[in-house]
């Protein structure tokens, strides 16, 4: 039985395995929250999810993620490049998944961009750049009945 978190892990692996993105965001790629002290990283948050059913099981699952480069800096240098790199890695690409799952599509629903003052140092800002991505994957056709 596939694990829905396999989809999350596949996204992380795709982004974390890219040298260009790692050079821009060296503190890594994280689901939900980055380790304390991280200043340049990619954050993935699950925003929405839905299942479509068929008789005897799940037909496919749709998940929407906010995928953003997050950086604490005086200027927004490199944020354009980080957002563009995320888009290049996730927009309409083949995403390796475990054998039980089959990728249907991975697309950007909308771009994301934001900025916030840092609470402790007013000369610095948190910059966010990326997009909301929709991932759909189909489940195996095996028919299940309750035991």
């Amino acid at each position, binding site marked *: 039985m596939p694990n829905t978190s396999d989809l999350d892990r596949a996204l992380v692996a795709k982004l974390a395995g890219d040298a260009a993105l790692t050079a821009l965001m060296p503190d890594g790629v994280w689901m939900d929250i980055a380790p304390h002290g991280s200043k340049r990283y990619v954050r993935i948050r699950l925003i929405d999810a839905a299942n479509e059913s068929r*008789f*005897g099981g799940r*037909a496919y699952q749709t998940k929407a993620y906010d995928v953003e480069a997050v950086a604490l800096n005086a200027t927004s240098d490199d944020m354009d490049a980080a957002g563009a790199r995320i888009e290049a890695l996730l927009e309409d690409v083949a995403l390796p998944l475990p054998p039980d799952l089959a990728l249907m599509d991975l697309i950007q629903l909308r771009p994301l961009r934001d900025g916030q003052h840092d609470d402790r140092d007013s000369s610095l800002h948190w910059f966010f750049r990326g997009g909301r991505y929709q991932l759909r994957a189909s489940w195996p*056709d095996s*028919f299940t009945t*309750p035991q």
Partner: protein
Amino acid sequence: MIKTGRYGQVLYSPDGVAPPVAIVSINAWKASFKQEYEDVTCFQDVNKVYIPGMKDVSGSYSGFFNSDELTPFEAGEAETPGTLQLVPNTTEPTFGWEGLAYMDAEIDCSVDGAPKISGEFKAAGPWSGPAGFGALAARMAKAKGNAA
């Protein structure tokens, strides 16, 4: 007993001999066994009066397009009817409806969803309900055994 529709099933045998096989990626079916009624109201009747005519067996199904499952489209091309079985819940496999039927299929593909299929069926022979469910498939299996 009231059961969920999650474990419903649509099974089909194209040649009417082999046992019906589940069609995968289907998520809904509907069958109608409505009677026709003839109006036989006469003078002095205080209300309309009807007598039953023939039962009309037909229905529909829907689901997702699955490139590993082309049975609905092959059935739509067939010139002879196949055996169709409709099961509300596979945890009660003795309850269902079955009979010979012609099926058709259509596909609906759009940019924002998985391609969906749907189709209709019409009876091509006598149909049996829960009381006689499985008898047709059993006869087919027996016929297959005799032929082997």
